[in-house]
């Protein structure tokens, strides 16, 4: 990048190794974007996992799982698409993320509806996680 700027200042035309350095700079930018997408996607998947473990009942846990399905999966897909650029593989990844967006709410609704029909009563009202001191007193 800096080589190209220097060439622009001195009025020279860009030589092949200047273009190579531009491409190198772009690939670093792309890698940074990919890492940001994958890391934030993994963060949402991790947060969803924590939610499934911590939340009190079946219906509230569904919400945490929904987090993994939407932003978690989509950000990871976006990262992979940026990594691959404009190729056929990216198109297939785009299709996969589209199908995820279509099927995951259908599956979640089916599971929630089945639980409700079977008579599982959802927990309603305020809920607070027990603090470690409360647990000690009980024991």
């Amino acid at each position: 990048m800096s080589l190209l700027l220097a060439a622009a200042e001195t009025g020279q035309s860009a030589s092949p190794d200047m273009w190579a350095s531009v491409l190198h700079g772009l690939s670093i930018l792309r890698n940074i974007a990919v890492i940001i997408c994958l890391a934030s996607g993994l963060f949402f998947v991790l947060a969803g996992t924590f939610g499934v473990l911590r939340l009190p009942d079946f219906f509230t846990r569904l919400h945490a799982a929904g987090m993994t399905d939407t932003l978690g999966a989509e950000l990871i897909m976006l990262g992979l698409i940026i990594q691959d650029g404009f190729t056929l593989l990216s198109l297939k990844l785009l299709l996969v993320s589209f199908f995820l967006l279509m099927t995951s709410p259908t599956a979640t609704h089916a599971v929630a509806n089945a639980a409700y029909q079977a008579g599982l009563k959802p927990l309603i009202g305020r809920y607070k996680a027990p603090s470690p001191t409360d647990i000690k007193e009980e024991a």
Partner: protein
Amino acid sequence: MFRYSLILAIALALYWLSLSGYYDNGLLLTLGAISIALVLFLCSRMKILDDETVPYLHTPKALSYFSWLFKEIVKANLQVVKAVLSPDMEVSPTMVKIPSSPNTEMGKTMFGNSITLTPGTVSVEMSEDEILVHALLEDMSDPAGFTEMADRSAWSVGEIQSPKLEE
């Protein structure tokens, strides 16, 4: 009828081409064309060539709807992450009945799926004119908050001309 079979043929051909990736192998292209023709024949025999099976005309509207929905998904995700990761994890699960204003089956499906897709709200049961929604946080269960989503999903399947936007 002919219009829908043409659209379906084009959509299936694009889908086949994007999944296969072999464009110079005559045998594979022929087999692909045969499979598309077979699907078209089956669809016309089952008499399901209609707007519901071939919804590709709604693609532009659906794309603009999805870009709006994605913003909502990000907002809801951040709310749920905050609730789940905070140490005392204050949640207030609620069940609420939301009037489902879209009239067509497709509009209802779009609306119900959008509710489930946004984290923090799950559509539990659908009836003729209502959707039973389970919400993780109490302030997500306000029925007024769902009217814009209902309007926009009805618009995205071509049910109403312009959504009543509250900007």
